[in-house]
């Protein structure tokens, strides 16, 4: 299905626009009557990604930075394969595991343990494969007895702990993380970063979106800075951070002056 080798991430000329509507779904009535008032008056489509090309090798850690709305999350969503491109191509080799939203992919009325099974199954694992990992996941999450309680009772920190514990044990070839780690406390963040390094030593590729320069510096040797859906900079972390700060300063300056 995918031409990319396991652990490889390739975006080529990727473009994607979103039509912004209060309610994304239409109705048959509108289809047959053939018009909808909100579409004409609504905001123009947002070009989340414009001709983005980037390539990440196996075992590499790429950071993505950019202002709000620069296309960071869209890049990850395109890489997971759940959002199709308007043009260009996106390929991730092997098993992709993503941590995009806190609590995404959980059934709220089911226990943490049941959600481990569900998440494993969602990534194509069978029962034996999940069972083999469950205890390690439970231990890593540090949820203790809460693992057998419905997750609707969890705090956001507990969601992240379970979410990361699952993601970190699914034998991912590519891991995509969007900001969520910031929700956990510092001790758990350190534990996550240590685990990520361990996984990367085993050949896992990481794409990490963060606003936190400290985390990015810690983990990524290379950073892509996105601006208005385009790649504004792609290179070593120190230079990228400098570029990102200039971008923020420029923006601040222009809004103050403008």
């Amino acid at each position, binding site marked *: 299905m995918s031409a990319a080798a396991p652990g490889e991430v390739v975006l080529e000329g990727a473009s994607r626009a979103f039509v912004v509507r209060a309610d994304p779904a239409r109705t048959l009535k509108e289809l047959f009557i053939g018009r909808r008032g909100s579409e004409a008056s609504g905001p123009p489509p947002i070009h989340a990604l414009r001709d983005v090309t980037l390539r990440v090798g196996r075992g590499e850690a790429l950071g993505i930075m950019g202002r709000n709305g620069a296309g960071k999350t869209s890049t990850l969503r395109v890489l997971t394969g759940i959002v199709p491109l308007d043009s260009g191509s996106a390929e991730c080799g092997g098993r992709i595991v993503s941590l995009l939203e806190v609590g995404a992919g959980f059934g709220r009325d089911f226990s943490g343990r049941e959600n481990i099974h569900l998440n494993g199954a969602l990534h*194509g694992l069978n029962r034996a494969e999940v069972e083999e990992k469950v205890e390690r996941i439970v231990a890593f999450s540090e949820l203790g007895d809460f693992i057998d309680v419905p997750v609707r009772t969890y705090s956001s920190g507990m969601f992240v702990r379970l979410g990361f514990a699952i993601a970190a044990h699914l034998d991912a070839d590519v891991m995509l993380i969007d900001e969520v780690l910031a929700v956990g406390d510092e001790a758990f963040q350190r534990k996550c970063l240590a685990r990520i390094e361990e996984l990367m030593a085993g050949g896992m590729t990481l794409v990490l979106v963060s606003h936190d320069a400290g985390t990015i510096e810690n983990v990524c040797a290379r950073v892509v800075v996105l601006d208005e859906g385009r790649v504004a900079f792609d290179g070593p972390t120190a230079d990228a951070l400098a570029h990102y700060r200039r971008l923020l300063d420029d923006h601040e300056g222009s809004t103050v002056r403008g």
Partner: protein
Amino acid sequence: MRRRPYAYLYEQMVRRELRQKYKGSVLGVAYYLVNPLVLTAAYALMFTYVLRFDRVEDYPLFLLIGIAVWLFFSQSLLAAAGSLIDQAALVRKVRFPREIVPAAVVSTQFVIFVVLIVLLLPVVLIVRGTLGAQLLLLPVVLGALGVFVLGLALGVSILHAYFRDVAPILGAALLPWFFVTPIFFRPTDFPGQAANPWLSDVLRWGNPIAPFIEAVRDVLYEGRVPGSGTLIYVAVAAGLALVCGRALFRRMERELAVVL
């Protein structure tokens, strides 16, 4: 590469569905068996004592078979319609074959339906004396019904994800549809049939669920092999529904994560 990497996901979803269904109701799974029984009792009383409809022997059994098929059909479609929206959190997170979501919903309903039929079987066989070779066709007919409903459910679920008035329209259509479906009556035997013989053909063949009811009823209640016309209709309808439902689903699923 394993042959069916998502079999466990499917199993998990069916289990979840079954558990979520009966959780919170005192009667548990039994609730799903009570529903058709109560409906049957109500209609049997109504037609036998109030409307004095006495053209069919063992009328409650005759009714119950029709109602069981109808409930499987209608409940599956209604549940499938909202299924992708219910599972939006999963659909937006991971790339997996999305057909699994409506398929799990239909499978759950199918399990409930088959349990009802199995419980009903000894009663029908004793009361109607229909133990015979035609029963070998029962799994075939039920299987075709399952495939037929699955095909429609795939179409309905993906349509409702994009057009949010599909489920309410379906809900509104099912009630009148119920009354023109040969559940209370035989399509070949109702007052005024002699004057309008074409009407029974419309009732029998114009309604895609009618031949399924007729086939199940032939096997269980009449104790005979369904006519070849019925069997061919049932097989073609099942195949056609599945092929079209899948094609529609595949065509429309691209933007699913965006519209949910």
